[in-house]
């Protein structure tokens, strides 16, 4: 795509150090048919994404289910390999890293998963779940391992004795704390939190969100915060990217994006959030229909089939993702 000039890293208000950069990252899953598994098409889970994360910030990624947010998270961790494009972490292009080189990078990249039950091994002691990354990576000495692990448990709001317990003895919120402790064990630079609170109740959700915020300051972490709940994302993030069908359609500072969303999809997404204030009745933009099938995405702008302000050009030409206002990038023909 013709995106080289536009994607200068100018979103940050102050000039900040770039920790992670995605350049034209793509992930296509082949669709096969017939006895010989002939390839008949692609599911474009992540299509041509340019993105950079600055040190110490929280970048929120929102979008409906199936828009490719989790795929993007896994791409960054190299849990799956990109079809094309580059992933640059801390100045190194890690796209082609393998073996011991990749292992070294993985120390700095950790993940907190959505489902706190499925992501913890039910047959392992909590202490061993949390210190496994340390045993795996830090070859030096394991003398203080137990103390280290216990202080880590205390740091995330659990107790020292919890070291000897098993995951089923904990509630959902506590299990998520275990997952966070494990992610912190190696003092990573970047944590990808994939829907870390969507399985939790509101009061528990608040505890975990507060914890994540505290830890960010203490450990100087950068977060990629993936969620579908826009109010949670707003609470957590400095900048927000909105995804639709594998594309990022808008990136902006969080205050800008909520005050004045530019892309029609962002507008409708924000207007669809139920407002917990019965006195304020707001104008609703209700989208028609569902997200199109990613195997057969619409031509031109992928959003044109549901867009309330679609123009004829939207069906034919794919809009370019570019800066339209200071620190704001949008992919929409309205702003060209």
């Amino acid at each position, binding site marked *: 795509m013709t995106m080289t000039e536009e994607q200068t890293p100018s979103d940050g208000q102050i000039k900040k150090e770039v920790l992670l950069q995605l350049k034209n990252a793509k992930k296509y899953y082949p669709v096969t048919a017939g006895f010989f598994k002939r390839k008949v098409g692609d599911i474009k889970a992540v299509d041509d994404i340019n993105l950079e994360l600055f040190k110490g910030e929280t970048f929120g990624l929102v979008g409906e289910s199936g828009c490719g947010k989790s795929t993007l998270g896994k791409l960054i961790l190299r849990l799956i390999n990109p079809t094309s494009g580059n992933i640059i972490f801390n100045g190194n292009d890690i796209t082609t890293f393998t073996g011991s080189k990749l292992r070294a990078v993985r120390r700095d990249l950790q993940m907190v998963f959505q489902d706190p039950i499925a992501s913890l091994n039910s047959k392992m002691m909590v202490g061993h779940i949390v210190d496994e990354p340390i045993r795996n990576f830090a070859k030096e000495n394991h003398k203080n391992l137990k103390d280290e692990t216990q202080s880590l448990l205390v740091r995330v709001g659990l107790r020292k004795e919890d070291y000897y317990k098993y995951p089923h003895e904990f509630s959902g919120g506590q299990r998520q704390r275990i997952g966070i402790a494990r992610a912190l064990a190696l003092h990573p630079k970047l944590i990808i939190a994939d829907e870390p609170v969507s399985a939790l*109740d509101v009061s528990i*959700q*608040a505890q975990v969100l507060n914890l994540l915020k505290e830890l960010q300051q203490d450990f100087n972490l950068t977060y990629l915060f993936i969620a579908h709940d826009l109010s949670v994302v707003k609470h957590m993030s400095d900048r927000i990217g909105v995804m639709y069908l594998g594309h990022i359609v808008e990136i902006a500072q969080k205050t800008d994006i909520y005050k004045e969303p530019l892309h029609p999809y962002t507008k409708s*997404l924000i207007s*669809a959030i139920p*407002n917990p204030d*019965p006195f304020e009745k707001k104008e609703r933009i*209700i989208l028609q229909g569902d997200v199109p099938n990613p195997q057969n995405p619409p031509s031109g702008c992928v959003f044109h089939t549901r867009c309330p302000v679609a123009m004829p050009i939207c069906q034919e030409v794919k809009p370019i993702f570019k800066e339209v206002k200071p620190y704001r990038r949008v992919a929409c023909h309205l702003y060209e």
Partner: protein
Amino acid sequence: MPKQKQTLLDIKNLYTGFFINNELHHAITNINLTIDSGEIICIVGESGCGKSVLALSVMQLLPSVNAKVSQGEIIFQGDNLLDKSIKEMNQIRGKSISMIFQEPMTALNPVFTIGFHLIEVLKNHTDLSKKDAMSKAIDLLQQVGIPRPDKIMHEYPHQLSGGMRQRIMIAIAIALHPKLLIADEPTTALDVTVQAQILELLKDIHSKENTSIMLVTHDLGVVAEMADRVVVMYAGEIVESSTIHYLFAHPRHPYTLALLGSIPDLNHDKEKLQTVKGVVPSIQNMPQQGCRFASRCTKAFKDCTNITPELSEVSDNHFARCLLYDACYPEDSSTKKGENK
């Protein structure tokens, strides 16, 4: 809203419990609730507070093996539902009261077509011919905003998206113009944009057919959007109930306050969210005495663990279960305030 309010459903002193190791533990205790015709009432609370058990008690869909409604009455249009036989209940379910479940995939049978599901309801309760039922079903699909209804009739649940499936569930639920629609977390499994569509559809049905809706949810945003009246539940009890505007403007019970404080606000930035320490007690270790919220409450004082608070009227039609507002609380108010600090 009609001026003459008519009580449609009156739940009196309801207790429902489950047998765990042959011992009955109550999941909901002492529930008193009325729903007027044409009213939308929201039951809100965290998981495990008994809101779904309440909904299932009304429908009498709880597993008869290990669950039991041990006390109370559920009076629907003058008749106690608990006295009805299974056959009579089958007549009521789907016709007078119908239910929309949270997970539309598990609620629809994967081996039958959408048309089959719809026609089944119509044929069980009416004597429409198959042909008439077919055209009625297509009408219903149109009513809930399904595109190409005549094609969708012959498709299977897995071919539809989550939002479409939930629309099918709604179509089945409203097929016979029920008086009461119970929706148990109807939008929890859906995306926000689809959630907005479904809520709009429910509002539409409500205003067109004057159906009463009992909406069970954990999302206070949805509550503010939909409800006329709100009931907040905690650990199997109603802790506060009021009209929607009054509750959001003057929440009284500490639990309601905490719940409202723990949601991130879109309009105002909060640096830190208010949290509730601890977790909801499980039904086996429910405190036998005192307020059930006492161990997590920031305003708890000595008597909270000894004296069980009653649901008392704080102001007009606004009830709260808290010693701070309990008129019958015997101590003089000076000690109350002193300890409250």
